[in-house]
C-alpha cells in the first residue's frame, strides 16, 4: 500500500491569519453570539415570576445593556476589519472579498463545481486549493459585511432616539428613510437570521476544509498558521482570487 504514493507531502508553515485578524474574528464571534442571544430575549422575553418589586429587578434592562454594549464592540470591530483590509497581508486584503476581475468569478465557478457539485476536473477529485479564502468564501464574506452594515444601520438607527451621543444620532436618518421604527425593527430582526445561518455553514465548512485538505484549517484561526504542500511553492500554483495589484 505505501508504495502507491509518489511521495509523502512536505508541508511548509504559512502565516495566513495575522494576530489582528484572529483577534477580530474571535471578538466578532463572541459579540455576535451575545447579540443573537440578547436580541432573541429582547424580542421575546421570558415570563418571569418574581415576588420582588419592579424597582428591585432589572432583567430586561441588563439584556438590553449587554445588547447595546456588544453592538458598540461589533461596530468598532467591523470598522477595524475594514481598515485592516487595506493594511493587512494579502489574505486579509479587501480584494479577497470584492470581485474586481474575471478570475474571481471563474474561481467561484470552479469552487462551485468541485466543492459543491462534487464534479471532477481533469479526472481529479480536487483541483483548486486556496491558501486563504477561496473566491466563493471571500464573496460570501463580502455579503456578510453587507449584513453587518444592515445591522449597524438599523440597530443604531433604532438606538439613535435613545442616545445623547452624536455617533448613534448619525444613524437617525435610517428609520426616517424606512418610514419609522416598526419596519426598521423588523428588518433588524429578519437580518439576524443571516448570522445564524452563516455561523452554521461557516463552522461546517471549516471542518470540511480541515477534513478534506488536511492543512490545519481549524487551528489556523488560533495560531494563524496553515500548512501548505511544498508543490504549491515549487509550481507557483497558489493564487488569490483577484490578481495582485
Amino acid at each position, binding site marked *: 500500500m505505501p508504495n502507491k504514493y509518489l511521495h509523502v507531502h512536505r508541508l511548509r508553515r504559512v502565516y495566513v491569519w495575522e494576530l489582528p485578524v484572529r483577534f477580530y474574528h474571535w471578538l466578532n464571534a463572541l459579540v455576535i453570539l451575545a447579540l443573537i442571544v440578547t436580541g432573541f430575549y429582547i424580542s421575546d*422575553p421570558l415570563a418571569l415570576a418574581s415576588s420582588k418589586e419592579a424597582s428591585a429587578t*432589572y432583567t430586561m434592562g441588563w439584556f438590553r445593556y449587554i445588547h447595546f454594549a456588544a453592538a458598540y464592540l461589533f461596530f468598532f470591530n467591523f470598522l477595524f476589519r475594514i481598515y485592516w483590509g487595506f493594511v493587512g497581508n494579502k489574505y486579509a486584503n479587501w480584494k479577497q472579498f470584492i470581485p474586481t476581475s474575471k478570475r474571481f468569478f471563474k474561481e467561484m465557478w470552479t469552487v462551485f463545481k468541485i466543492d*459543491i457539485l462534487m464534479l471532477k476536473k481533469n479526472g481529479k477529485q480536487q483541483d483548486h486549493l486556496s491558501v486563504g479564502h477561496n473566491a466563493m468564501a471571500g464573496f460570501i464574506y463580502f455579503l456578510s459585511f453587507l449584513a453587518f452594515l444592515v445591522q449597524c444601520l438599523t440597530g443604531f438607527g433604532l438606538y439613535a432616539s435613545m442616545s445623547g451621543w452624536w455617533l448613534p444620532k448619525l444613524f*437617525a436618518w435610517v428609520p426616517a428613510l424606512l418610514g419609522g421604527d416598526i*419596519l426598521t425593527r423588523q428588518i433588524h*430582526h429578519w437580518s439576524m*437570521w443571516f448570522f445564524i*445561518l452563516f455561523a452554521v455553514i461557516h463552522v461546517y465548512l471549516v471542518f*470540511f476544509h480541515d477534513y*478534506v485538505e488536511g492543512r490545519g484549517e481549524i487551528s489556523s484561526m488560533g495560531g494563524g498558521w496553515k500548512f501548505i504542500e511544498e508543490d504549491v511553492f515549487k509550481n507557483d500554483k497558489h493564487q488569490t482570487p483577484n490578481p495582485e495589484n
Partner: protein
Amino acid sequence: MTNDAITTQPTYYEEVLRKGYSRRDFVRFVSMMTAFIGLEQSAIGQVTKAMETKQRMPVIWLHFQECTCCSESFIRSSHPIVADILLDKISLDYTETLMAASGTQAEEALKNTMTKYKGKYLLCVEGSVPMGADGVYCMIGGKTSLQILEEASEGAAAIIAWGSCASNGCVQSAKPNPTGATPIHKIIKNKPIIKVPGCPPIGEVMAGVIVHYLTFGRIPELDKLGRPKAFYSKRVHDTCYRRPFYDAGLFVETFDDENAKKGYCLYKVGCKGPSTYNACGVMKWNNGTSYPIQSGHPCIGCSEENFWDNGRLYERGSSFAGFGIESSADTLGKVALGVTGAALLGHAVATNIGKSTFIQEHQEEGKESEKELK
C-alpha cells in the same frame, strides 16, 4: 407667511372676550398651549401678545378619504377655548363637517377665502387623496380630491396634514390600497407641510400646532419625518408609566392574567410603544384622563407609518406581510435553519463519496507518517 396684513378680522383675544371667557380663562389657555408646544415659561408673554394682537387667520379645512376622527379629537381638546375660538369662531372658513353652509353656498365660501386671502390662509387637510381610477373614489362638488387639493394648496401659506390619513395614508392605503390612497406630502411638493400623524392625533397637539403657527407666523420645528418635534420626538415607551416593568422584565402574558391585573408592561401582547413617536404618555386623552396603555391595551402605533401593514397588532412585530399567510420571521428562520442543516448533511455525505480517493490518500499518508515516528 404671517397674517399681519389681514386687517378686517378681529383678534383672537377679542373673540375670546366676545364669547364670554374671562381674562383668567384666556391666560390659562395661553399657558397651557405654551407648555404644550414646548416653549419655556418666559414665552407665555409672547404667545399672549400674539393672541391679543394677531387677527383671525383664515383656515380652510378639507376632508378627503377619512373618518373625521381628527375633527372629533380636535373639538374634544381639553380647553374649551380650543374648540370655541380656534375652531368654531376663528378658523374655519370652510370645513365640510362643521360649517353651516352647504352646497353652492359652501363652495362659494371656499372660493372666496381662496381668492381673498391668497397666500395667507392655512390649509388643513384631513384624509388621504385617492389617486386610483382618476380619483372618483372621493369627489366633492363634482371635483376630485386631487383637484380640490391642488386648487386649495395653490394659495396656502402652509399645509397641515391632520392625522395618519393625510400624513401617511393610514388604513385606506393598506395593501392592496384599492383606491390608491396617497398622503399629502407625496402630492404637494412646493409648500411647507406639517404632518400631525395619529389616528386621531391628540386634540391638544393639534391645537398646539395651530397656536405655534399663529404665534410665530411660521411652522414649528419638524423632525426628519416632517412632524413637529415638540410632540413627536419621544417614543410612547419613553414616557410610559409602565416602563419600570419593562426594564424589570415583567410582562403581561395574556390579557386576563395576574400580570395584567398588576399593571405590568404590555410589550409581549404587542405594544408598539417602543416604536411609536407620540405624546400620548404625557398629554393623554380626554382632558388628560387616560391613554390606551393606561386602559390596559397595548399601543397599536397609530401615528406610525404603515402600522396597519407592519405586522400584527397583538404581537411583537416580527411577521412578514405578503407571504399569503403572515408568517413570523422566526418561523421562516427555523425552516431555513432546518433546510441548511439538511443541505450540510447531504454535502458531508457527498464529500465522502465525491472526494473519497483524495481523502483516503490523506489519511493513509497521515497513518504512514505516524508509523515512522518511534
